[in-house]
């Protein structure tokens, strides 16, 4: 139980690679929270994929004890939040659990789109914000210019920004001091009924489900019977701890404190990020505001490359889903790909993370079909349903109209690439909302259909700007548009897994691009193969893959028999990675590569 005035809770807001994790590592290290020999990079990112990509997916926290210059020892709780738009809701809850943020900006790069999205969340959560300029040891650092940019673009005072180099340790003591002197202490009433926010939760193989909480009011103790206000479920608290960052048991947590609990909760699915935790008896009356159930926005099919692995895939997906409430799945049957699952994700990164974990942790090779968004289909009989899979598109004669989700995309880019970015957004049916400059960097805001973004927009953006653009988005709602289902026929048979929803005006162009791409992706067969794109019964693009003409080993004598037989064995194994469609073998990578536009 700590005096409120001696607590500071904060998060770090930064664009990817601007040094968030390094700064966190440095704060932990300099306060002696972790012994030197136990230090490793990106200490707070525990998943392989987080470390590899340098991103944070799950929230984490660390409790730091800091003896300040005023002679008092403070408890600093850092919540490491996910930094990606896919996890915007999770970020917003983490932000609500702390009172202040360090805004870390790379002094050689300046403000990026992701910085903006996250800093606005911090502002929304009424945070006190301390700007921190990182990498000032580099020759290219321009702290004055970047400070000015922070003021211009974000609109916060950056005159007393802390200048640091997280890598070398310069300025770290100033950061610690700024946290104590410039961030507010939390508020709360120890005597009020327990009110704690569920910040995040995860599955630990030894402890079961671990729940991270921030106590707002009241006190939680080991052995208390607690209630989750959203689900109504009641659990006894088995263990209460703080993270340093390894778990250290503690008897109780009072207002303003951040810690974790375990309570014999079976599945992560039983916990909801943003839920309010109170006591079963004499609990609080009203829950904390802002709770939202997880809402998948991007869908795709996941099929095992080897159809014999379907049951393994089912097991793996069920296990992953236990640990990730935001991921949804249902069984799907595709004529082309057999049995698999239609899965819903918070966004593309989330999709990639899940797919990556399935392949890596469960060793299942997957075919991923084109990502799709949720369309609202308004039928002539007045009903509306949500379409998750283009293959399920109903007969057009019964459809009144269609609505698609749109996003507000913010792109920051050096002005020499602006023209290419505008063209890309225009090509993707974007409507320009804003265009402003901060120095030589432009900030463009576009209203874009999500379906033009889910697939390869980010790749294209990176390629046309040589990686200098940054991009972030938020959902803004649905609007009607002329969308049609485009089918792909290979050897005159429709391949359901290649169906996509496209804008009518762009259908022919997309169709042409897809059939041309498929022609290069499907190997030559013994016969010629027509590849067509069609809307309804009307073919809009066609290519023909000619038959194989020459493929024979010129010399094959006694010494070649073994080698040749082994080659056939290898090809037999390789064929498992193809999907037979009618008589055509389609390689697994074709299902995704066919959609990539090299425009």
């Amino acid at each position, binding site marked *: 139980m700590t005096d409120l005035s001696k607590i500071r809770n904060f998060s770090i807001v930064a664009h990817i690679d601007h040094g968030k994790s390094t700064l966190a590592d440095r704060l932990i290290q300099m306060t002696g929270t972790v012994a030197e020999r136990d230090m490793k990079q990106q200490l707070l990112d525990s998943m392989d994929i987080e470390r590899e990509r340098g991103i944070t997916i799950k929230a984490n926290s660390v409790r730091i004890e800091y003896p300040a210059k005023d002679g008092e020892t403070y408890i600093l709780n850092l919540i490491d939040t996910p930094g990606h738009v896919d996890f915007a809701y999770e970020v917003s809850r983490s932000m609500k659990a702390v009172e202040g943020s360090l805004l870390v900006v790379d002094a050689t790069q300046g403000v990026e789109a992701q910085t903006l999205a996250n800093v606005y969340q911090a502002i929304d959560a009424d945070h006190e914000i301390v700007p921190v300029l990182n990498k000032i040891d580099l020759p290219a650092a321009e702290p004055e210019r970047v400070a000015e940019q922070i003021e211009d673009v974000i609109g916060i005072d950056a005159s007393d920004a802390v200048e640091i180099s997280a890598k070398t340790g310069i300025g770290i003591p100033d950061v610690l001091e700024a946290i104590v002197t410039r961030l507010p202490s939390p508020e709360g009433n120890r005597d009020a009924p327990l009110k704690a926010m569920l910040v995040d939760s995860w599955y630990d193989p030894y402890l079961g489900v671990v729940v991270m909480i921030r106590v707002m009011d009241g006190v939680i103790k080991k052995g208390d019977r607690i209630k989750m206000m959203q689900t109504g479920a009641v659990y006894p608290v088995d263990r209460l701890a703080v993270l340093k960052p390894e778990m250290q048991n503690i008897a109780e947590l009072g207002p303003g404190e951040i810690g974790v609990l375990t309570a014999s909760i079976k599945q992560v699915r039983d916990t909801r990020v943003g839920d309010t935790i109170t006591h079963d008896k004499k609990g609080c009356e009203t829950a904390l505001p802002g709770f939202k159930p997880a809402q998948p926005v991007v869908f795709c099919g996941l099929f095992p490359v080897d159809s014999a692995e379907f049951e393994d895939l089912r097991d793996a997906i069920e296990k992953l889903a236990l640990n990730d409430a935001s991921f949804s799945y249902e069984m799907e049957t595709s004529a082309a790909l057999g049995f698999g699952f239609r899965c819903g994700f918070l966004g593309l990164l989330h999709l990639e993370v899940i797919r990556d974990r399935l392949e890596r942790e469960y060793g299942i090779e997957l075919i991923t079909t084109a990502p799709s968004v949720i369309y609202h289909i308004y039928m002539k009989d007045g009903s509306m349903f949500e379409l998750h899979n283009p293959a399920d598109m109903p007969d057009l004669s019964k459809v009144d109209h269609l609505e698609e989700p749109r996003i507000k995309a913010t792109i920051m880019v050096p002005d020499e690439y602006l023209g290419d970015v505008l063209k890309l957004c225009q090509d993707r049916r974007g409507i320009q909302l804003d265009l402003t400059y901060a120095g030589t960097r432009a900030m463009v805001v576009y209203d874009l259909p999500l379906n033009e973004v889910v697939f390869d927009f980010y790749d294209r953006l990176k390629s046309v700007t040589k990686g200098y653009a940054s991009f972030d988005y938020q959902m803004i709602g649905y609007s009607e548009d002329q969308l049609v289902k485009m089918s792909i026929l290979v050897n005159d048979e429709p391949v359901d897994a290649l169906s996509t929803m496209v804008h009518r005006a762009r259908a022919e162009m997309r169709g042409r691009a897809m059939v041309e791409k498929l022609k290069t992706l499907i190997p030559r067969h*013994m016969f010629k193969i027509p590849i067509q794109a069609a809307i309804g019964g009307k073919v809009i693009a066609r290519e023909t893959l000619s038959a*194989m003409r020459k493929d024979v080993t010129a*010399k*094959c004598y006694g010494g070649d028999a*073994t080698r040749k037989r082994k080659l056939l064995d290898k090809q037999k194994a390789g064929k498992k990675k193809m999907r037979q469609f009618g008589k055509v073998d389609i390689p697994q990578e074709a299902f995704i590569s066919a959609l990539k536009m090299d425009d």
Partner: protein
Amino acid sequence: MPEDWKNGGFGLYIHWPFCQSKCPYCDFNSHVAADIDQTRWIRAYCSEIRRSAAETPGRVLNSIFFGGGTPSLMAVDTVSAILSEVRDCWTFANDIEITLEANPGSVEAQRFAGYAKAGVNRISMGFQALNDPDLKRLGRLHTVSESLKALEIARGAFDRVSFDLIYARQDQSVEDWKRELKQALSFDPDHLSLYQLTIEDGTAFGDRYNAGKLKGLPEEDASAEMYFATQDICENAGLPAYEVSNHAQNGQQSRHNLIYWRYGDYLGIGPGAHGRVTLGKARFATETHLSPALWLAAAERGTGETRRSTLSREDQAVEYLMMSLRLSEGSEIGRYQSLSGQDLPEQKIRDLDKLGLVKADGNRLRCTAKGRPVLNGILRELLT
């Protein structure tokens, strides 16, 4: 089943691993060595021959083949000593074919008469190209005029003479090849091996190709055109294809190579030589040391063999089909079935038939003229 090899006959392959220089396209087990103690090699070959003969008593030998490397670098005495050992070990068929591969250089040609006297009755010469600049690009040490002189000498010495050409060479047009082939046919050979240039990994051409530096090779369509032109021209000249790359006048087919393609038994003696041999109820694949020095030492110690693996029924069936479908006579469906214990996939055969790529009549399955150039695809269909 244990008698299956009899459908193909019994042959002996002897590998001479040395060449004067290594050709940039060649991925065979060949080595350039300064001085070779041929007496020592004779002893090693003879010891290996006796070892193999002890396992296959009472067999009648249909063919012997000296391959390489460059067997025409063997001294006449070496060939003679080996053949006399073989004669002591097995009974020869009345029509035994004894072939030696030769480079058509002037030095080699001087030995032709000696080889014939030792018992060689067929020679197979590596002409490869009929113009000198291309011979140079292929790394060949002889000239076209030497080739032609060697041909004349060979005709005086042997009953049967064959030569090889390589086509689909760098910067060779379909017309260039047609002209060259017609010129070759004007020499009136009884047998021709016509190979499309294949770029193999681990060769000088392979390295250059992988580095993007081997230019001017024909695309798939041009190479198909050359193949079809080859079939037509040879057929019209009375040398129809009896195998993917081999053409012969009636009765002049290479009996030795037919043993491979008809999936008979063959013993492989010498560095890197492979064999297929039925012993008791099992059929084995045998391999020997690749390195000449290692093989020589091992053979002197008792055996040059490094590996002997039992071929499963499935392996045998696959090997039979992939070898026999190369022949214009095709495969015996019943033989495949009794080897594998399974039927060939009927629907796939019907599909391939409909595409005009194979013909199944009675008990035989054959590739059509259109099917043979895509045999790898057909085998993938049927076997994978």
